[in-house]
């Protein structure tokens, strides 16, 4: 079974199996946003709450919010994105945005598996 899950806000959440997750945006989201020009990274140590804004992703077109898919604490951010936000356009699944220590690992149970996420994007 895959250790990657998805949120309805078009994020992927990779379960590292040690109580931490990597969070990025999906290829579908990347395509919808278009060429990224700036990722406003959260700060290490920030507490994040499910459903609340944690970052802003700016494309050539517009600014879009990134919402926390889980509760937890930011323990690392992908600083490479500061200089090269386009890495996400190149490979959205390989370029995580933030690493989070989960407050409650059961949050992962509420997320979608790949098949369910596929279905969601086909509807949109």
């Amino acid at each position, binding site marked *: 079974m895959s250790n990657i899950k998805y949120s309805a806000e078009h994020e992927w959440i990779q379960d590292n199996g040690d109580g931490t997750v990597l969070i990025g945006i999906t290829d579908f989201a990347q395509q919808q946003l*278009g*060429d990224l*020009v700036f990722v406003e990274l959260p700060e290490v140590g920030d507490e994040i709450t499910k459903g609340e804004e944690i970052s802003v992703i*700016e494309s*050539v077109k*517009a*600014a879009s919010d990134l919402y926390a898919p889980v509760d937890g604490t930011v323990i690392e951010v992908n600083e490479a994105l*500061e200089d090269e936000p386009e890495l996400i356009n190149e490979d959205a699944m390989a370029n995580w945005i933030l690493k989070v220590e989960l407050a409650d690992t059961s949050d992962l149970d509420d997320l979608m598996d790949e098949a369910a996420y596929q279905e969601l994007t086909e509807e949109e």
Partner: protein
Amino acid sequence: MSSNDCSLQRTALYDLHIEAGAKMVPFAGYDMPVQYPLGIKKEHLHSREKAGLFDVSHMGQVVLKGQRAARALERLVPVDIVDLGEMCQRYALFTNEQGGVMDDLMVTNTGEQLFLVVNAACKEQDIEHLKTHLADQCEIEVLEDRALLALQGPKAGEVFAKLAPESADMVFMTAKNLSINGIDCFVTRSGYTGEDGFEISVANHQAEELAKILLADNDVEWIGLGARDSLRLEAGLCLYGNDLNNEISPVEASLMWALSKPRRADGERPGGYIGADVIMQQMQEGVTRKRVGIKALGKMPVRDGVELVDENDTVVGKVSSGGFGPAFGGPVAMGYVPTEMAQEGVKLDALVRGKKVPVEVVKLPFVKQNYFRG
């Protein structure tokens, strides 16, 4: 991908856009291509490096006919139309009683008539305005059966000369009637990207054929409205509705260059247009705010509507257009600030989502204009 909204109008090139894989969006009542598979950034860079083809058929094409047409139009614009040379083009503005701008437009004297191109979102209002004020002076014809294509970029001249050799000696802001593969085109050497290029008015039923001929050149790619906006912003050109509106005068908009000398206080035909008293007084006494270029010192784009504050956190101005300039390689914006701050190097902060982003007043344009002046 289509917007599937039946109330939207389509240009004569709609099918070609769909075929090219365009993402269509509603714009000024039309279903228009915002981007193609290349994406906004690459489309933008392509237009700065080679040649981009834009469908701007949603814009209004209007013709004024009659002996008195030029003099009549001068009642609505602070621009010299009477002495506009044959096959020459000029940028103009419809002004209102308060000295604000109702729309900006292009005027070409074809010798027999005046050919106007107005903004899509304003065209109904503009046509009404022309009819109200000029119907007794000249004949007003709206060209509903014509498309408008723009070919823009450093390679535009070369590409176009291959198809119509007589275009080679056209300079910026002049016009010619040209035939391309037997298709009659009314062509001006102008555009709205800061690059050399042409705007081509062609009959709707021949638009697709002409577009295909232009696209057959390896240097030409379709470019959508998304890149059109970032290109004009980098070039420091105003977008009506953002940088210009009914409450902003041409003097405030730093468009003094568009106010022709013969129409100024010391000119041959001073004033005589709607709002002249306000605008001439502003030219005399100055204005309290001005449009300037705004460069964000970081990487975060500063977009329209963002407030500008001084060192005391007092709101002093607002961004009117902003985004990312792919050729400039960073955020680009324009906005209005108090006249005393409208100087290169003045440092302010932009309030983006509650955070202060340091910005600086800069000279426009952000990229060198590349017009062909012969």
